[in-house]
């Protein structure tokens, strides 16, 4: 399967613990679905950032997920019902989209991942949705964006769509 064959989905999930994020990350990798890639970023209580990623597209010779800015944006769990605490989410996520990753990933994560929190992004063909949903079970916030087109355009589009939905979801809270 190539990334141009069907709709591309990007899932963004937020967690309050690194354990939970890594559990879902491992579950995603082991779920048997075809993936374009997955990234998990976490920040411990002392502020140290760790990043783990599985970039399946690199193996196929396509542009890596890093090239499309697939880094984790700030997540905001629905903690205070009366307060739109997720309002900043879209803006920061958007900023992330336009940043190159690689050496900048950790710097971005430092700015966007709350202390003690973690985030997961998974890119996959739409046909893998069922398996992905079964694998990502511990997130406290989750959105899925989708887009069609060639691989770079699809990935960027799906990521942008996910971030837009995340912002909408947060502002509703």
């Amino acid at each position, binding site marked *: 399967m190539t990334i141009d064959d069907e709709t591309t989905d990007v899932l963004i999930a937020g967690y309050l613990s690194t*354990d939970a994020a890594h559990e879902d990350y491992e579950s995603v990798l082991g779920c048997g679905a075809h993936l374009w890639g997955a990234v998990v970023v976490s920040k411990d209580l002392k502020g140290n950032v760790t990043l783990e990623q599985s970039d399946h597209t690199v193996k196929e010779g396509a542009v890596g997920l890093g090239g499309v800015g697939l880094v984790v944006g700030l997540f905001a769990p629905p*903690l205070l019902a*009366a307060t739109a*605490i997720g309002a900043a989410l879209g803006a920061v996520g958007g900023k992330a989209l336009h940043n190159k990753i690689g050496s900048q990933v950790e710097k971005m994560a430092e700015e966007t991942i709350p202390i*003690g929190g973690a985030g997961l992004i998974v890119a996959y063909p739409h046909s893998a949705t069922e398996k992905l949903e079964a694998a990502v079970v511990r997130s406290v916030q989750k959105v899925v964006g989708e887009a069609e087109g060639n691989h770079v355009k699809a990935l960027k589009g799906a990521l942008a769509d996910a971030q837009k939905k995340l912002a909408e979801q947060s502002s509703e809270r």
Partner: protein
Amino acid sequence: MGDVDRSQLPIRRPSYSGAVNKTLDGSQPDWNLIGHPVPPEGAPNVLLVLIDDAGFGNPSTFGGPIQTPNYTRVAEQGLRFNRFHVTALCSPTRAALLTGRNSHAVGFGSVGEFAGGFPGYSATLPRDCAPLPRILKDNGYSTAAFGKWHLTPDGQQGPAGPFDRWPNGWGFDYFYGFLGGGASQWDPCLAENQKIIGTPAEYYDTDNPYYFPDAMADRTIEWLHGVRAQDAHKPFFAYFSTGCSHAPHHVAKSWADKYQGKFDQGWDKLREETFARQKELGVIPVDTELTPRDEAFPAWVDVPDNLKAFYARQMEVYAGFSENADYNVGRVIDAIDELGELDNTLVIWIWGDNGASMEGTITGSFNELTMQNGIPLTDEMQLQLSERYGGLDQWGAAIMDPHYSAAWAWAGNTPFQWGKQVGSHLGGTRNPMVIHWPARIEGAGELRSQFTNVTDVATTILELAGIPQPDTVDGIAQEPMHGTSFAATLTDADAPEHRTQQHFETIGNRAMYKDGWWLAMKTDRIPWVLTPDALKPYAPGVWDPDAGRAELYYLPDDFSQAHDLAADYPEKVQELKDLFWEEAERYKVLPLLAAMSTFFGMVPPIPQETTFEFRGDVQNVLSGMIPRIYNRSYAITADLVVPEGGAEGVIVAEADHLGGFTLYVMDGKLTHAYSMMGVFIFKQVAEENLPTGEVTVRMEFAADEAKPATGGEVTLFVDDRPVGKGRMDHTVPIRFSGYAGMDIGRDNGGVVDLAYEDKKPFAFRGAVKKVTFDITPHLVAQDELDVHTAEQHGQAAHALSE
């Protein structure tokens, strides 16, 4: 002293019977001058033990799953009481226990944190109601209190007192414990007599870490030894009031692990098991029925499988915590035995002051203060936050302040309905009591079932000691105690009922007991739900308490309140309703819902002080007394002296990593860290090093809006020059901590920023000359009033959870 008049306290010194001449020639000394009052002959020692936030179905002595061998030991040599009643809230039960009067009548219709504007809710003991320790002390007892106090108004717990509201003021010669409603068991902010002494130094000993329950027992034993070393005969009154099993549920893993797997069956099954054991033990009548689960509690089968271990661990820790309390009370009893005085020591051991607490909501929490700050978290979120702080193995360690699910509390109150705060039902009002006094008790190991109330304890102690209630104390005529003595039950299983009626009221939940009949009038609000919608039906002019549901039970035939007879006996319902109103008026229960008055706009005046100065040696400012920085813009300014080579350490810190703020210097840089209840953590670091010499640093928070939990921008300044900035999306709306204090020049106890955990208390190297808080009230008066009102709502919610 021979015959003395004990009706007026202090006891008057006998008239001088000596003779005084110009010289010693012919003078006769009167050695009674240096004497002191002594109790009547045969007055026993008294050990009064009160366990916190526990239920009828918790201890194994009463069929529960928690092993309480020491409780059972004294029960087998003494008496079990299975119809003993308390109020459904912490402070009211304590006030009633120590005064022998109904709680509202002595100003404790609610808790110490809520000192309201109605006579029954002032949290201030009237001077015409001298408490038991004062009476015993004036009659020649040595008196001491250890552990939880919770009878001092929230804003009066500092060096300015007033100290008549502290334990010494109530008549205790010595006090070692904490003044509030709950405390960490690992790093409590303690008081000793009339001083807040903060976190014990042993907290920093990693090899032998401090643990409050152990220290309580140590201090009690040490005090007993000291008293006996001085006076071989003077009787003692020791009040041993554990922090256990109130949240935070803190205990070493080894204690919790004793219960590993013991609660995997869930709360529904646990109730059935406890109920069966209770029948087998005979602590409930054989015809008792197990009350059904209210829909407010989820069925265990509906708990997602992946969360069952999370819930089970909550109860394992609670059980280990409780068993440890039994162990430490046992140590005190052993020490008395070792002194050879156990036979003549009246041990009264009450397991719970208000039923088990449902304030953990359905999910339980890694940090009990999240609920009180109105932060709704799902059980998955709670689990993840516990993982953030070390996982379930650390549930019970200092890194968390855990509370268990309300459903576990309900199971702990087996076989009854509901629990803490629900004064209308036995789950919140009936707790086990055991009395041990080999010198006097007949029928060791027997059960007593006379209807007994917490107000009866003081009256009974006085009768057994042969001490009359005083007519006047300090010249003030005294309100007679409301309790009736149950002394006769110690020697006679068939002693007649000493109490035939009693009212109950907690947060609008009411009951009226008379001659076996119990009228229960519970509000429809679920105890742990304080949302505007939940409160709306109880607003002034809306709520008609007589129009609510009334249940009627006949307790001699229905031990657990399983059969509502209200429809069959409408006249009895009306009779008891009328009687309740009479009693409520007589004992200052009115106005109903005074404990919630702030929710309905009756808030205290907005404080006018906007500047608070702390010199560099101020430490352990209790959490209810810190500057009111919540929900507003504010600045913290510190005048420092930075030595050559640079400064390092904490300038000012409030509470800990589960809620608090800290301004400190590390790696030469001014840093501000803020924990929003351990859920969100924000940090801003200066971009340049702190200069040396006289330096003024400032942290400014500019609130976004006049709303609870408002976000805002933080700017750091050095000598008025901005050096760093950042944003805090959410701030703590109500209260950082239930117990941890604020310190200048260090961060005592658990630290706010775990980045300097290994340097704690991270005392400032250099000098902190002064720290000033400047609060900026909102410009629009209505905004300020709204924020103030919201804070008061939160404080009331916090108070109701203590």
